[in-house]
């Protein structure tokens, strides 16, 4: 028998990933900015939230703001950091953009470690203000948290959907498809990307950062390493880059598979074999989906066009910021 409480915990984690994956999709799938630094932005959001909300007399002192204030504040701070990163990084093209966002994420993590007077360093922060925690019994709280996270996920989905169907979303996809042409039709691609990048930062700060912290209950810098970025990316690619529902499905599937491994019980001596199952499944899932449905499980075409023509291979046509550099061909 699988306990409901465990399912609720796993589902909460899956939904946090689903939010992050949707926002990455907004940025990379529609905006064409292949950001390998999402983990860095999530770290900024999570730390800002905790530092804004925790009590001034806590071990790592904060400002003691209410939860909602903390979320909004975290959003603003993350948006500013995103703007700061985007300013140099968005000048770069293709794999150089990938690398520089990656480097920024690493810098953020290192600064969190070094700045231990503010962030608690490697020791991290152990107290987290969570919504309605006092109002419920501890064994009911996982379900409360699941409910809150689910609501936030729906909000993020609605936001992303609305962006997708708007003039702004259209311009964004146009700039992704063909940067020079978008410029030649009067779009300032640079400022469009800057605003998208900061906007994604804002949403990560408001939604993903706090929700992730609520789930974790404590913060340590090692949570925000490259693995987090890779996991979110894998979820996005499996679900389908550019599709609306794909990122949600991808994240739920990936987390589901990873955590389902926990339900297999083996002798403790075989624990290391079991621990290999999770990366193996993620790897196989990625390879198989890309081999047989290279656009991911859901496609962008399905999400937008009313034509019914299903064009295969979204990923193939996707051009991350100035893909020219990667393809070595013409843009």
């Amino acid at each position: 028998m699988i306990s409901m409480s465990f399912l609720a915990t796993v589902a909460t984690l899956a939904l946090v990933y689903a939010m992050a994956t949707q926002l990455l999709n907004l940025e990379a799938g529609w905006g064409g900015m292949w950001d390998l630094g999402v983990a860095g932005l999530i770290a900024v959001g999570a730390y800002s939230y905790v530092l804004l909300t925790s009590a001034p007399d806590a071990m790592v002192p904060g400002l003691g703001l209410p939860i909602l204030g903390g979320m909004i504040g975290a959003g603003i701070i993350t948006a500013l950091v995103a703007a700061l990163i985007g300013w140099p990084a968005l000048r770069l093209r293709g794999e150089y953009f990938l690398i520089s966002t990656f480097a920024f994420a690493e810098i953020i993590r290192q600064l969190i470690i070094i700045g231990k007077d503010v962030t608690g360093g490697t020791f991290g922060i152990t107290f987290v203000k969570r919504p309605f925690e006092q109002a419920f019994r501890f064994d009911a709280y996982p379900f409360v948290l699941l409910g809150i996270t689910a609501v936030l996920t729906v909000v993020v989905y609605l936001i992303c959907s609305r962006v997708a169907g708007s003039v702004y979303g259209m311009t964004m996809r146009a700039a992704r498809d063909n940067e020079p042409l978008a410029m030649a039709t009067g779009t300032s691609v640079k400022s469009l990307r800057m605003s998208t990048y900061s906007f994604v930062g804002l949403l990560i700060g408001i939604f993903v950062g706090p929700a992730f912290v609520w789930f974790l209950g404590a913060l340590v810098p090692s949570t925000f390493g490259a693995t987090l970025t890779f996991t979110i990316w894998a979820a996005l690619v499996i679900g389908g880059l550019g599709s609306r529902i794909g990122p949600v499905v991808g994240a739920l599937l990936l987390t589901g598979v990873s955590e389902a491994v926990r339900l297999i019980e083996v002798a403790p001596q075989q624990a290391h074999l079991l621990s290999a199952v999770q990366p193996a499944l993620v790897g196989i899932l990625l390879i198989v989906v890309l081999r047989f449905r290279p656009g991911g499980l859901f496609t962008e075409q399905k999400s937008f066009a009313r034509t019914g023509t299903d064009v295969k291979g979204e990923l193939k046509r996707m051009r991350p910021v100035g893909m020219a550099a990667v393809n070595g061909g013409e843009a």
Partner: protein
Amino acid sequence: MQNLFFGLLTGAVLAVATSGFALLRNTERFLHTAHGQFMALGGLLGLTLAQQFGPWLGLPAAVLITAAIGVVCGKLLFDPIKAQGANVMLFTSVGLAFLTYAVMLVVFGSDIKVFDVQLGSARQIGPFMIAPGEIVLLLIAAAVTAGLWLLLSRSSVGRSIRAVSSNRELAQIRGVPTNQISSVVWALSSGLAAIAGIMMGILGSTSAEAGWTYILLVLAAAVLGGVSNILGVIAAAMLLGVVMDLSSLVVDTAFRPVIAFALLIAVLVVRPQGLFSFASRKEAVA
């Protein structure tokens, strides 16, 4: 001064690894994220086989096996999706990285392993304190990169590889057996990964986890060098090694990764095509 030598040593190993990565990137046109895992695989295989059959037999065997695994992966996983383009291949490679990691966990376990190879104690040579084994490693790295360069520039296989990397379709039309060349490149690239992985293992330690760390350095060096140019990539790897080791003279070592990455970003912003890319930047509008 001593740090300069340390940097050279780090850089030389990194150069071996990165040249393999760049080679594959240039002919197969995607970023092979699993390269770091192949390094770890080579290191672990080398360690295990060296224990069984001694280093003289075991280490070359590990390199050959890794190369063979690379060829098989290329044929089985990457050839069928070549038409799907760089992104699909990039993420397939991420998948392969996870898979290789899992296999290493099963086969070798997760603990840290140490090569049973002594490098000897250091002697004063000029301004440097150098251990004999370090010279051997440095020489091997130099020989491997020089060999690669000779192979690429002098041999007919090398000419074919370069033809494929500059224009695959054209090379095919001109009768270059592109599929065989792909296999050769996979073998070379994976073999180089194994050599670098073994050297990393001898210098420090090796484990299934190490691959994730390796790939970061390789990516950084490759991008810094402007991926398309093997010599540039080698130079960038050396430079990265030296800069990382020299930076600790100037700033607190806690800031070393921050400095290294900030430097990387700064270089990219000033020269977006990498430090040593000689090809002029393609105009956005072609």
